[in-house]
């Protein structure tokens, strides 16, 4: 624990530790918070994100469910109606497909269907993302699909501090939040995390690197790569801004417009396959908001239009520093 300028203290934590601490803190703060999911209680989660909650808060508030993603999601609707604040885990985002009718059709629509009678104060956590050689459906980036399901907020932190601040906000939020945790970030991302209450409002993007030649717009683990690219191009005299969206719904349209207006050139990076990925939405938003300030077409860096591949092809599929660097250079050459 170290002191910061503004009088607070920080701890150096991995993203996983930040998530775990936040769950502890939120359960302690509000006894309506309950955690449910596969292996979240006795085992503390397959990645240990829920470690210690069962021991601390007991079997009523931390519940190992049967392997039934649909009813995990569906039960949160009932729990919310009964006045609780469910924080459910889907063990891997790819298995949210099993729960899609509950997530898209019910969780996302509870407030709308009942015209505000019920508050879906529901958080669904799920790990996802590439680079750690998991079996199929463990790594898939499905955020764009969820973004097209109106009624869900989709939060995708890129740093340990944000994981804390955004998860706390998500749990306290009266709207349903899908909180997506990058597998590579669990232990691969660490940094100073403010101690005590730390809240970051949903829908406010973060400038991860300042710069004005070109902006890389991205979210989740890809922010880490984008920053590395920005830093390395900096030595070549290129000024690369990195905009971390933090949440794709709500989308900080204003921050995107500002960044693109100032830089004139943009690269959007995502891990999902290209067609219908969320990068397309960012491009469309740029087109609408600041077309006239574009000095070159926006370049997308995405996965390819195939299912997330097996381990030996993973590094070809997932955008890496080389592909991002090439895209940045290309953007600067265009126009």
């Amino acid at each position, binding site marked *: 624990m170290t002191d910061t300028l503004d009088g607070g203290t920080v701890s150096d934590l991995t993203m996983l530790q930040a998530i775990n601490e936040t769950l502890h803190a939120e359960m302690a703060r509000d006894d309506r918070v309950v955690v449910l999911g596969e292996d979240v209680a006795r085992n503390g989660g397959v990645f240990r994100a829920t470690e210690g909650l069962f021991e601390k808060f007991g079997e009523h508030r931390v519940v190992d469910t049967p392997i039934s993603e649909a009813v995990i999601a569906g039960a949160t*609707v009932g*729990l919310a109606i009964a006045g609780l604040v469910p924080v459910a885990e889907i063990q891997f985002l790819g298995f949210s497909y099993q729960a899609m009718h509950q997530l898209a*059709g019910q969780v996302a629509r509870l407030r709308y269907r009942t015209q505000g009678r019920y508050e879906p104060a529901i958080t669904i956590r799920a790990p996802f993302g590439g680079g750690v050689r998991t079996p199929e459906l463990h790594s898939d980036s499905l955020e764009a699909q969820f973004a097209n399901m109106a009624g869900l907020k989709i939060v995708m932190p890129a740093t340990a501090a944000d994981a804390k601040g955004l998860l706390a906000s998500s749990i306290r939020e009266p709207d349903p939040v899908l909180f997506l945790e990058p597998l590579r970030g669990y232990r691969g991302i660490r940094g100073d995390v403010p101690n005590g209450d730390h809240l970051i409002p949903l829908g406010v993007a973060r400038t991860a690197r300042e710069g004005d030649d070109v902006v890389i717009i991205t979210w989740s683990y890809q922010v880490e790569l984008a920053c590395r690219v920005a830093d390395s191009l900096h030595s070549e005299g290129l000024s690369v801004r990195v905009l971390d969206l933090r949440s794709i719904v709500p989308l900080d349209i204003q921050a995107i417009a500002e960044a693109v207006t100032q830089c004139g050139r943009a690269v959007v990076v995502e891990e999902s396959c290209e067609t219908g990925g969320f990068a397309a939405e960012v491009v469309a938003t740029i087109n609408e908001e600041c077309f006239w300030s574009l000095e070159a077409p926006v370049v997308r860096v995405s996965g390819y239009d195939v299912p997330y591949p097996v381990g030996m092809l993973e590094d070809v599929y997932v955008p890496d520093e080389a592909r991002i660097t090439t895209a940045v250079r290309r953007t600067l050459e265009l126009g």
Partner: protein
Amino acid sequence: MTIPSDAQLREILVDMVIARTQSGRLWNLQRQGQVGTVAPVDGHEATIVAATHALDTEHDWVVPQYREPLALRRYGPEILECFMLYSLGHPAGGHIPDPIRVLPNQISLGTQIPHAVGISWGMTLRSEPGIALVFFGDGSSSEGDFYEAGNLAGVINAPVVMLCVNNRWAISTPVHLQTAAESFADKAAAFGIPGVTVDGNDATAVYDAVDEARKRALAGLGPTLIEAVIYRLGAHTTADDPSRYVPPEDLEAARRDDPVLRLACHLRELDLWDDVAQEETEAEALGLIDSAFDAAKSTPLTPDALLDNCFSTDTQRLARQRFQLLQARMTEAN
């Protein structure tokens, strides 16, 4: 065995007659193009009304599928008011006001069963008394949600009563193509919970079964699956033509066991019911639905209500869309 008193039976019959009458009126309104698709209640009255008369409206939740609302008036006149708004396609139809413990219609089959399990589970977590009663059809029992929810309810011992309304049809699909199980109650074995089959045309039997299941649940003994066997006497909905697939002789036989007639007969024998009561109740039913319909029709609605209640507050995008929507309306108005 808990048998409803004669007075209760009479209240049940009143609600049944009202449901039947209003359902008929709604059918006609649909035929006149005044409301959207209607799913008639005919044949379901004893099951829905008797089941909910066994509940404590202050504490127990009702989680319906889509055929129930007209038969839930025990939970308050707001149910009918909302249902008329819903039938008109007005968004306020989904807002059954606090403190009424009835969820709005569910169209996505089976999805309401996990909700009911969640509600009842939540009540135990908050140490609140009460149960959740969830209605679903024979057809809906084929959805994974039914099984996943039943299985979870068994494990966590949720105070939920799962009421499978076996009306022998799921649109055109008869029960023998829906499952090879001997009965829907048999499916309880998959969850390790009790399963019972009752004659859903017998209000007393339904009342008793729900009452017992409810008491078990309140005593911490967990969920019960009840199968109420009835027959769908009308069309699936106003969009359906059952003459294409329902064998006339089956329908004929089922009509002879009409639950409304059956209970009316019984109460007539006890001198608790007569033609006058029947007519007065029907008239009351029509009066209620007509004034609810009028009220619904005059409930205001602004176009940008479209964007309300998606999120607790508008996102940047929704704010932009609201602006565009209002602008578009202004352009059109000019």
